[in-house]
């Protein structure tokens, strides 16, 4: 028996709380992310209200002062990036489905897996605690640029709140590193017989590459966070030169504010791909499943994801064109960044190629996957503007940037999370989600996301700046207020329609229609096992893989799909 095998636990605590089962851990990550996304969304709602009604008194926070607004945006960004976009696709669905899709009984290191979840959970609690300490949550933004983030005297929230914020990120990094190790080892060592690398579903490829990115990126952020904590509390000056705040010397000298930016973005840019790669993998998969057609260019998709991951580590400087970094390096970073557009474009072409001459079934997960493609194109197309230093001179720190990264890293990834939820819910819980509610949720969210983020491009083109708690001080920004109003109203409707998702989720848990083992007629290994899967995933019968992951509409086959574990395909084509 392999070392990772473990008996099914009986007690409630070992079964559901400190579980070693990757499926339970996956669900724990999923529900953590679900909680986090509602906290993060609530914060954005408060920000949107404050932007157009600056004097309104709001729940929990009362009257919003400029520093309160900044702490809202800091916490919104941090919660969304770390505890939603990193947690749900990778920790949640990756944990649950990676072992099953490769035919393994569990992750390679179940105890490490449990520790990685509880570490992440602790990180979330520490982050939320920042709201409740004296001075409140930090105001330095999710990017935490030093010296603002390094000096207690730089503003409210830069006391204990900022220490908790850094500690939370450091804790999160530790959890993410443990998870990444586990994902990589599991993918390399635990594939079932016949599951060659080139037969792995694209979801598995995506989680695997994401884990490699995580392993290389989170260690750097962890180190940077520790250095920042030392600057704040032990009198070091890694990131702080000789500065005065309000005319008072701070005692620091010799540090480099740019060093923080380099370390942060060395993590921060791969992080974008950590958020989006799992969605790319999943949507590739869904387009194939619901077009009843093999994925267009499987190998090209794999190579594209690998090159995105590789190039993703060489483009961090494009966040720093205006930072005072050498203008010559800006040129190099710009070329590399434009280069990363190439594999992204390949993926888009292949998604369209998959739809072409298929037979499309408009299920709810498919609608979200199609929505993902549309949003990925829209969010991607603004990238080449920002990647060129000449245009970034004007666009840097405007809402154009907000529009760009929200569409591609936020909304597109969240469409991936929604698609994954609707698609795998039947396997995870044995019941189908409600179709009508799901479709309504899709339409409102799809149109709503565009209504929120498309106008932000216009706001940015008119030089409207981000992280401004009020538009009243600068005349040209004040003239853009009607756009802000439209965006806030669009956000009201879009946020309200997310309740449909929650209602559907919890209603279906108990009242949903019973699901069969393979309701979508899909080919990958999670659909050959029982619903929900047993403790060791395949009830002792480890599958043997004979086919690629996307054998749909094979000529001469009895059904329009051939499972990966079916007899080998010998299609004449």
């Amino acid at each position, binding site marked *: 028996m392999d070392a990772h095998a473990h008996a099914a636990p009986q007690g409630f605590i070992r079964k559901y709380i400190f579980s070693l089962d990757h499926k339970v851990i996956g669900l724990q990550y999923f529900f953590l992310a679900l909680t986090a996304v509602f906290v993060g969304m609530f914060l954005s709602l408060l920000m949107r209200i404050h932007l157009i009604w600056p004097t309104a008194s709001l729940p929990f926070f009362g009257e919003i*002062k400029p520093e309160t607004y900044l702490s809202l945006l800091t916490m919104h960004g941090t919660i969304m990036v770390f505890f939603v976009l990193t947690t749900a696709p990778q920790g949640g669905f990756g944990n649950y489905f990676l072992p099953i899709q490769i035919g393994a009984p569990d992750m390679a290191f179940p105890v490490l897996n449990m520790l990685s979840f509880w570490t992440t959970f602790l990180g979330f609690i520490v982050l939320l605690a920042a709201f409740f300490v004296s001075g409140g949550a930090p105001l330095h933004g999710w990017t935490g*640029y030093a*010296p*603002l983030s390094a000096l207690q005297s*730089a*503003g409210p929230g830069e006391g204990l709140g900022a220490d908790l914020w850094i500690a939370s990120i450091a804790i999160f990094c530790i959890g993410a590193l443990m998870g990444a190790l586990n994902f990589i080892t599991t993918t390399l060592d635990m594939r079932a017989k016949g599951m060659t690398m080139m037969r792995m579903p694209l979801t598995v490829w995506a989680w695997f590459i994401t884990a490699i990115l995580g392993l290389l990126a989170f260690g750097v952020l962890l180190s940077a966070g520790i250095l920042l904590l030392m600057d704040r509390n032990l009198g070091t000056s890694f990131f702080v*030169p000789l*500065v*005065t705040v*309000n*005319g008072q010397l701070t005692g620091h000298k010799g540090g*480099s504010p740019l060093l923080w930016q380099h370390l942060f973005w060395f993590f921060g840019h791969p992080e974008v791909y950590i958020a989006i790669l799992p969605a790319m993998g999943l949507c590739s998969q869904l387009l194939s499943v619901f*077009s009843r057609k*093999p*994925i*267009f*260019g499987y190998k090209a998709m794999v190579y594209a994801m690998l090159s995105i991951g590789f190039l993703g580590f060489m483009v961090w400087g494009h966040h720093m064109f*205006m930072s005072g970094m050498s*203008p*010559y390096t800006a040129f190099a970073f*710009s*070329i590399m960044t*434009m*280069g990363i*557009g*190439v594999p992204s*474009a*390949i993926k888009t*072409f292949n998604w*369209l190629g998959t*739809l072409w*001459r*298929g*037979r*499309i079934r*408009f299920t709810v997960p498919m*609608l979200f996957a199609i929505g993902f493609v*549309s949003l990925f*194109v*829209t969010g991607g*197309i603004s990238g*080449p503007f920002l990647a*060129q230093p*000449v*245009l970034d*001179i*004007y666009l840097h*720190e405007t809402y154009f940037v907000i529009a760009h990264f929200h569409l591609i890293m936020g909304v597109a990834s969240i469409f991936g999370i929604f698609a994954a939820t609707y698609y795998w819910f039947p396997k995870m819980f044995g019941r189908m989600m409600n179709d009508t509610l799901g479709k309504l949720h899709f339409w409102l969210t*799809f*149109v709503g996301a565009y209504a929120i983020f498309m106008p932000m*491009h*216009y706001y940015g*083109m*008119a*030089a409207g700046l981000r992280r*401004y708690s009020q538009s009243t*001080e*600068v005349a040209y920004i004040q003239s853009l207020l009607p756009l802000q109003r439209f965006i806030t109203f669009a956000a009201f409707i879009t946020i309200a329609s997310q309740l449909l998702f929650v209602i559907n989720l919890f209603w279906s848990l108990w009242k949903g229609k019973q699901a069969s083992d393979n309701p979508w007629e899909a080919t990958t290994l999670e659909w050959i096992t029982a619903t929900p899967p047993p403790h060791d995933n395949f009830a002792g019968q480890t599958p043997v893989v004979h086919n690629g992951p996307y054998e*749909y509409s*094979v000529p001469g086959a009895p059904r329009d799909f051939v499972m990966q574990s079916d007899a080998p395909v010998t299609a004449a084509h």
Partner: protein
Amino acid sequence: MGLVLMIVIWLITLVSTYFFIAKTWWLPVAASAAAAGIDHHFATSFVLMGTVFVAAQLALGVLVWKYRAGASSEKVDYSHGNPTLEIVWTVLTAVLFVGMNLMSSSIWASERFRPAEANAVHVEVTGMQFAWYFRYPGPDGKFGVTKPELEDASAGGEAALGLDPKDPASKDDVVSGVMVVPVNREVEVILRAHDVIHSFFVPAMRFKQDAVPGLAIHMHFTPIQTGDFEIACAELCGLGHYKMHGILRVVTQQDFDKWLADREAEKQ
């Protein structure tokens, strides 16, 4: 469902594109020498990227409508892709993206690779929570020494910068809360920050650069139009970030000389 999806995707695409073409919200007046080139490259990029955007969205719409289940009896095409097509579109996008980049690189080089011209007006721009101060070296052409321990932020002006009165070079330095520069002459800004990072952004000049504590960053631009232009802080610097703004006043050379002389006279 396929038809509705196509119509919705097309509508979103057309409405979004309309506002870019109509320029309902757009860049402000182009008041610097470099602005025309930058704006031209903006226009080029919008045409190229806009075409890709519209084409991809329209194609997505057509595909989901045309290949919906039940639309036709046509068999699904059992195909794993087409390597030739993959190579074609890889090369096309590479050419498009790298080409676009190369088109703009000469503007970047002239903005950032070369130092300011010899006859440029020197202005030291200092950001601190939450104000901008502008210092001119005066007739001696030299900036006086500033010392952090002499700073008195509440006093404003020279005291806020910590100007050392003992240094002879500081005697004729002029510190202003408004940035006044002559038209059609290059301005060399020397960007500094006292406390945290700020960013000096003048939309009408298409000019932006972070002011970083510990660094003195030299940059240049040439105003070609007189008038008052807004300066805004473009890097989060604390609770007053949203109100850290200022005015760039571009005047004729004569008016500039007179303004500077008046400030000198006030000082003596």
